[in-house]
């Protein structure tokens, strides 16, 4: 007496994402800590020195957070209007920020009041940065100018009026105190040399430039604007290297992982993409809840901080090695396993008398129904919402099994409108899937045969049938196109082959 052989569920090769080193690396972060700020978070900057605090610019304040605290360590509130672009100096002592009221303020990180106020811009200042010699400040403003300021004297050193639209991003060179680059809404990037009083290089991005990033070697420049992220070679006079278009909304922020191997771009489409900097392919992707305005990575990628338009700051900390190891071992520690296995792993001693119990075969519900020949019920079970949507291969396997038993027609017949609509819905979703087509096409024909008499009685079913027809027509057109392409390719290959042969022949001659 053999036992019932369960329905075989075909295992299809998984088409989903592969597990790579990158996914493992970027997934190894804890659940995000979310902090509500007062307004949209426009800028996040990490302090270069040891505790690696970070300044979050949102609305009229700049909050400075410690690496692990969820409360701000310090708050700078001396702004009359919206603050922009809070930046740390390379020694982590000073912080500069622009403001909607065109005044640039310089703060001591330990103090509260502004040390210096730089007045001169006529419109909101969106860009501020320290030069690498630590005594000057670069600012860019909506009045199309960018200026250099001297910190000790609080005087304006120079003003550059080359841009023809708002200046919204800029970086200073970390290696040379005289070089800085600005990007503007006039689609250009300009490299300025403080010694020359004018731009020495101009690059056209093609879209309003939102963010700039210099590689640590400062040979390459990355610019983001519109949906594009472009890489420029500065050593070749600003030659464009790569243009990437992986986002479907404006890219707002760029940053580089600490080892310089990965480039991250954040966008208004709520995604952060991670690129490999050798081939500029997307290797990973994060999703956030709202459009991202600012993004920063802590040194050594210890945390990923993103600021969003809905004024939420999301901080993701990297898991410590123990924590990441815990994930796999976690389930074993729950008591349920021990409860289930209780006494079952008892090894019989030598003199024990063994009373064996027949092993109960576990069967899925549809298999139990198939065993008792309840074909309609087993089809119902296989069409349950969860199975139908998540594991269509089970549904298809049951339909195939019923077809093999010759009872598919019986199982399909005599159903009501609701059920039929559900089945047709399933067919519309999966009929053209090449994995399932061979099984579902005969089933669809059978349904049409069975319910031919009642077509036209239910508007719901009729609509589904029309959709099905439309789908099939589209699929047929598609297949025809594919065949045409295949034919064209065949001709090309044949011509190529013939050419090669004649060439060979000539060589022989």
């Amino acid at each position, binding site marked *: 007496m053999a036992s019932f052989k369960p329905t075989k569920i075909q295992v299809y090769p998984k088409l989903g994402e592969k597990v790579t080193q990158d996914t493992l690396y970027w997934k190894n972060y804890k659940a995000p800590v979310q902090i509500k700020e007062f307004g949209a978070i426009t800028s996040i900057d990490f302090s270069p020195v040891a505790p690696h605090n970070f300044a979050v610019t949102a609305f009229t304040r700049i909050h400075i957070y410690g690496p692990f605290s969820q409360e701000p360590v310090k708050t700078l509130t001396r702004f009359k209007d919206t603050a922009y672009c809070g930046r740390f100096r390379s020694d982590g002592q000073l912080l500069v920020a622009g403001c909607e009221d065109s005044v640039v303020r310089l703060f001591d990180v330990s103090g509260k009041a502004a040390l210096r106020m730089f007045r001169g811009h006529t419109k909101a200042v969106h860009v501020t940065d320290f030069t690498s010699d630590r005594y000057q400040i670069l600012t860019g403003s909506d009045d199309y100018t960018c200026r250099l300021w001297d910190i000790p004297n609080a005087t304006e050193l120079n003003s550059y009026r080359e841009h023809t639209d708002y200046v919204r991003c800029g970086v200073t060179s970390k290696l040379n105190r005289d070089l800085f680059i600005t990007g503007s809404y006039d689609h250009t990037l300009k490299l300025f040399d403080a010694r020359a009083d004018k731009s020495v290089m101009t690059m056209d991005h093609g879209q309003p430039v939102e963010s700039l990033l210099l590689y640590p070697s400062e040979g390459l420049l990355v610019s983001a604007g519109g949906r594009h992220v472009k890489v420029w070679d500065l050593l070749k006079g600003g030659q464009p290297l790569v243009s990437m278009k992986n986002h479907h909304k404006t890219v707002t922020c760029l940053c580089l992982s600490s080892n310089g191997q990965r480039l991250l771009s954040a966008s208004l489409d709520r995604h952060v993409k991670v690129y490999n900097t050798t081939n500029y392919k997307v290797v990973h992707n994060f999703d956030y809840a709202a459009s991202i305005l600012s993004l920063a990575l802590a040194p050594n990628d210890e945390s990923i901080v993103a600021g969003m338009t809905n004024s939420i700051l999301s901080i993701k900390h990297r898991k410590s090695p123990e924590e990441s190891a815990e994930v796999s071992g976690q389930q074993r520690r729950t008591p349920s396993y021990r409860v289930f296995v209780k006494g079952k792993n008892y090894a019989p001693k030598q003199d024990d008398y063994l009373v064996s119990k027949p092993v109960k075969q576990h069967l899925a519900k549809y298999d139990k129904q198939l065993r008792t020949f309840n074909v309609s019920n087993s089809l119902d079970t296989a069409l349950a919402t969860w199975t139908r949507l998540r594991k269509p291969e089970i549904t298809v396997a049951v339909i195939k099994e019923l077809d*093999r038993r*010759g009872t598919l027609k019986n199982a399909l017949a005599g159903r009501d409108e609701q059920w039929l609509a559900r089945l047709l819905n399933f067919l519309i979703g999966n009929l053209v899937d090449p994995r399932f087509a061979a099984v579902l096409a005969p089933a669809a024909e059978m349904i049409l045969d069975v319910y031919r008499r009642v077509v036209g009685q239910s508007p719901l079913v009729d609509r589904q049938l029309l959709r099905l027809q439309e789908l099939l027509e589209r699929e047929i057109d598609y297949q025809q196109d594919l065949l045409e392409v295949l034919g064209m390719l065949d001709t090309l290959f044949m011509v190529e082959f013939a050419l090669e042969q004649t060439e060979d022949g000539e060589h022989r001659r």
Partner: protein
Amino acid sequence: MVEHGDIRVVHRGGSKINSREPVVTNDSRFLLCASGERVKVFSTSTEECVHDLRGHTDLVTGVLLRPTNHLQVYSCSVDGTVRLWDFTDGILIKTYDIGYPVYAIYASANHEGVFFIVTPTQSDNRSELFQLVAVHLPQSGDQLVEAQELSAVLSNVSSNPAATGFGRGGEYIASAKGLHLEVYFFKKQKSYRFSLKEDNKKGGKNTLMCIACHPKDDCIATGHEDGKIRLWRNFNHKKEYTYTTLHWHHNAVSSLRFTPEGTNLLSGGLESVLVQWRYNQESERDFLPRLGSAITHIAVSPDGTLFCTSHSDNKITIIQSCVKVSAVIQGLVNGESVRTDLMVDPRSKSLVLNGKPGHLQFYSLQRDKLLYNLDIVQQEYIHELGLQQFEVVKVAFDAPGNWMATVEERKPKAAEPEINLKLWAFDEQTQSFVLNTTVSAPHEAQITSMCFSQAADGQTSMLVSASEDGHFKAWQLPRSACTEGPSWSCDFVGDYRGLAPQCCCFSADGSLLAVSFQEVVTVWSPASWELLTTLSQPPKAIRDLCFGRLGCSKYLMGTTASNLLCCWNLLTCSLEWSTSMDVSLLLSDPLTENMAAFCCQAESTDLFVFKPSEPRPVASLKAVCSGKVTRAVFAPREEMLESCEESSQWLNRSQLYFLTQHMDLMTFTTKAEEDRLAASSKQLFIDDSVAMTPFYLLLGKHRKQENQDSLTRLSAELMPLPRGSLAIKELLQSPAHVLPSTSVLCSMFVESLLVSVADGSEESKHAEEEMESEKEEEDSEGEMESRTPRPEPASPGLQSAESAAPALTKAQLKELRRVKKLDHGWLADLLLS
């Protein structure tokens, strides 16, 4: 059978054991069933065949326990005799010559000296009419008795033994045929006939299939073609008879049986479910589902503890009280068609062919026993007529037997065929094949041929499958070990001018692949997948391809549809020779250079065995069997035969098995081999007075080994076994009636056990003595040594013979000395008493 010189064609693989109902003996220890021309006695506990009752000269059609002596059994046969056997000893007691073919036999305890048989009405075999005849047994002491007193009881009965049965206490006999039920009462000498309408309203068929009579009650159960069971009562009236209907089966009821107490009714049919109905509470049923295949007969042991069901796949299942299957006796499954070629499993040397639906059977040729069935399809088998099922159509093994490839196919009526290619790895632990890879839809059309690469290194296995869709594909096991174990994948897809490949074949070293596309043979290099050359022999398509082996590996043999056998030389790429023959099957022996060709000529098949290098055949046998032979295989022998006759030399290393048109498995044997077999079977027959239990087999083997050992170790040192065990063995082997009384024996027996202690001191004495003797020996050896280097003028051969002779005598002397010391006291006691 055809005589040809000393090579004979013989049947292998036993006969059907499910043709007639099996019989369980009163003590439930043995099961008797008709099997071809013999009656086989199986042990119900060990499934081993204990006796083989031979004597009938034609098909045995019935087995019946003698009602007056439960140790004797009647068997009837188409050869017109009824024989009485003692099945415990396997002795023929009496033969009753009836003179007409007998198709069934019945007897009842209340009819002493009479049994009832079914014979054709006319004496010629062709008539379709049968009658039930009572035979009065003449009282005679002779072995062969001619039964003359025949009296007809019922005319026009069915030849099916299940359609007739004795009623309560033998008062009446009921018989069913077509739509009629006839009951004959012996006391009144009157018969009643009841008829049913041909069809009822729902289109079910009322034809009666089988019958069973209640042992304690006046009730007859009949099974019908539409799956209904009717319980007839009051049938001793012409008009007022009644019947109740039970319906569970959806196909014809093929067997019905009441339990001896009459409390339960058992029924079975195509569904392969044994249904147990409570008598008088018919709504309560018990089921024993999934018994494997359709039930053809049901038998119940006289004490009601064992049920036996015989199945359509040549199987008898023994069930303990309708709960547990306790034993399965399985014969070679003779399906209607063998779709796979005959194959030999390189590991177990067993024959592999289609068995149960969706299974492959492994049949041991040496032991003539089915080893196991391997489930290939792994799907629930639906027992329904007219349903398209998956069938295994192709099997291939690789040379070391590590991999097996199977192709299964299902052809729905309207849709495209479903094809699955499965690759199985041999698992050392379970000693069977385990599924490794399933490829669904490997080709778009039917697979015509499949073969493994013969590469000797065994490292890289390659499988090539050719299909009607115009492609052949090479499948390979990737070398890089993945995390989930390696699985097979497609390596190469080849085609040739859009033609459909017919057969493919690898050369012996695996360096060449030949694929035939209609009349063209293409030769490929599997290493680079280059088309090396094409060979062509118009005008007709190639039917078979075969590479030569060993010394003839440069030859490629092929047969065409236009009766041509060709031999190509691959070194010159030209046709070596060809001859006109209608070859239906060509195959090569893997162990020798020989090739066998079966030729179909005028309704009978001839066999030619030849070497490709020599156009003259090694052997040729005319009229091997009738009809075409399309399946055959060379199976390697376990031990080589030493036949020096030229005509039978080709059978020395391997044996040729083939399937006839009627799916009988045949083989070729030589005279010498048969003699040897007969001798060994005789030896076995004497030995087999004990039931063949596994324990016995274990002990028996041990004992045999012992005997052999004692024979071979003539000159060996002290036997480790105490002689007590020898005594016990002697004691046990001598028959009980020649032994003295138990009281005498007991003390002796205990003494013989105690000897070992006394023996210890004796043995030490022996040891001392032996030490001395050994010393002596050493001395003598020293003498010998001193003697051997002495230069002698004699020839070296002579010298060695001389030096061997005294050594032998020395060993013998020692043995003799030991034998002399052995304690034979018990034997003397025995003789004295």
